[in-house]
């Protein structure tokens, strides 16, 4: 084993690209991922040459913990050609079981796993003692947890962890946890709603949260939660997507409509003048047909969509008469009633507020006001 290694190392020094070829044993994976391209480029930026890198890798390969000390040492080694000390140390080390450490900037988890497993027993003991919700230290101990989804049911402290990692607002496992400056974590969505509705205080300790709006996800905690409770997170994600889809489809036709219209409004708002003309002509003919009304209402709603903060640019250029708002609101109401009729049928009669005569009257009124509206706008121009 040792000889083979030396041979391999010699070859590596000559051509680091061919390092994979002679290796057939279990070390293949470790060696293959020993130097990731990203690491190489990072090292190149730091001004390390290939040899220095390889030397560094030789040292790091055998050490379970990588820290700045090794880097310093390898730098020193690269300046002086004699690498005897490191070789001696390596031979001494390889007599024991070599611990594979992948030298990859992407792989953050691996060294944690190593150290985490060793600490597992102590930590379990600590957790079993019943540490109750001490915000800061609780998070800390969890963040060190080994990312092992398979062991989630085997962990003795899983219930405690569940308690610790659940959001105090929705009482479920934190979904995209966001941590306040005072160290308490909640679902990002929950924290945002709390900041909106209950003021910018921490729900747990009532400390002031400077900016409740810009909640950032605590990545480490979120990753830990995803690793520990994959099923819960999956279920919640599924529920969320289902919920939003349902909402878009049938629960609130209005918002779905807005969503649809937002797409069309961009094209439609291009020809504003032509729309005004067509609107006028429709008003003149004054038909009471349902579909034409719907088209009108939709056209008016498009204007509301344009006025919504996302797409203000079209409207802010020209002054919008305030009556148009009210007009649009009326059209929206009409449209809503149409929706109620079409979606719920005539069985639920209590939801339909206007009987048909007044409904028709309202239609006419809306059309009359629309006919007046372009005129006032023209006058303004």
């Amino acid at each position: 084993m040792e000889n083979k290694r030396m041979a391999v190392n010699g070859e590596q020094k000559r051509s680091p690209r061919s390092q994979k070829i002679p290796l057939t044993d279990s070390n293949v994976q470790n060696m293959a991922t020993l130097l990731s391209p990203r690491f190489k480029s990072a090292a190149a930026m730091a001004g390390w040459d290939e040899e220095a890198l390889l030397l560094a890798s030789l040292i790091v390969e055998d050490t379970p913990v990588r820290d700045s000390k090794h880097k310093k040492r390898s730098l020193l080694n690269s300046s002086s050609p004699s690498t005897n000390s490191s070789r001696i140390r390596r031979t001494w080390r390889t007599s024991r079981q070599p611990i594979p450490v992948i030298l990859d900037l992407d792989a953050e988890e691996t060294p944690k796993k190593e150290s985490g497993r060793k600490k597992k027993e102590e930590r379990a003991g600590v957790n079993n003692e019943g540490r109750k919700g001490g915000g800061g230290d609780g998070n800390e101990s969890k963040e060190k947890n080994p990312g092992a989804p398979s062991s989630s049911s085997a962990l003795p402290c899983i219930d405690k962890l569940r308690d610790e990692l659940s959001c105090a607002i929705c009482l479920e496992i934190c979904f995209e946890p966001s941590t306040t400056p005072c160290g308490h974590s909640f679902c990002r969505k929950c924290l945002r709603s709390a900041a909106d509705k209950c003021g910018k205080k921490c729900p747990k300790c009532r400390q002031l949260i400077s900016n409740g709006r810009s909640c950032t996800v605590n990545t480490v905690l979120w990753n830990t939660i995803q690793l520990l409770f994959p099923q819960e997170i999956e279920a919640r994600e599924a529920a969320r997507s289902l919920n939003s889809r349902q909402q878009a489809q049938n629960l609130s036709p209005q918002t779905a409509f807005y969503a649809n219209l937002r797409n069309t409004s961009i094209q439609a708002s291009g020809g504003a003048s032509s729309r005004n003309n067509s609107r006028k002509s429709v008003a003149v003919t004054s038909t009471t047909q349902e579909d034409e009304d719907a088209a009108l209402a939709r056209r008016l709603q498009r204007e509301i969509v344009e006025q919504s903060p996302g797409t203000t640019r079209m409207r802010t250029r020209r002054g919008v008469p305030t009556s148009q708002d009210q007009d649009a609101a009326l059209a929206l109401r009409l449209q809503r009633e149409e929706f109620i009729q079409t979606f719920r049928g005539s069985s639920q009669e209590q939801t339909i507020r206007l009987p048909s005569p007044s409904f028709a009257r309202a239609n006419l009124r809306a059309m009359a006001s629309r006919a007046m509206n372009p005129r006032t706008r023209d006058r303004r121009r």
Partner: protein
Amino acid sequence: MMISGGGGKSSWSSSTSSWIPTTSVSASGKRIQREMVELNNDPPPDCSAGPKGDNLYHWIATIIGTPGTPYQGGIFFLDIKFPSDYPFKPPQVVFKTRIYHCNVDPDGLVSMGILKDDWSPALTITKVLREVRSIFTNPDHYNAVVPGIAHLYSGDRAKHDGIAAEWTVRFAK
């Protein structure tokens, strides 16, 4: 035109509240359900609570008068109503059993900081019940809703306790 426009506006605002289903309804329902499970698993001492009927947002709770207080031995029924945006707004807690207490108004409405401005979404009904139970032992006579009772409590404690015990015997047993 102005009239029709005005009418449209008012109905628009009213329609948004009734028509658009808010996502928080299901979220609050879920949270209340979780609280119910939690409460069943680990009920606070001398307390019980649960939905009144099918409505998850309307609970009924009982608190047994703490021994050593004038309310000792009484069984007090409370009504708890959760708002639709529940964890973000406090529940309403009303004593259905008459009680002589400076923090409970004549209609039974419990007046406590955490049920008003000091509410936090991290509070649960378990904590609220504990808190209600604690005002049996320590009435908050500085923030009393019935000043007369608070005055008597701070001035003539024995008389206050006597009346409270009498009410307990009369209404809560």
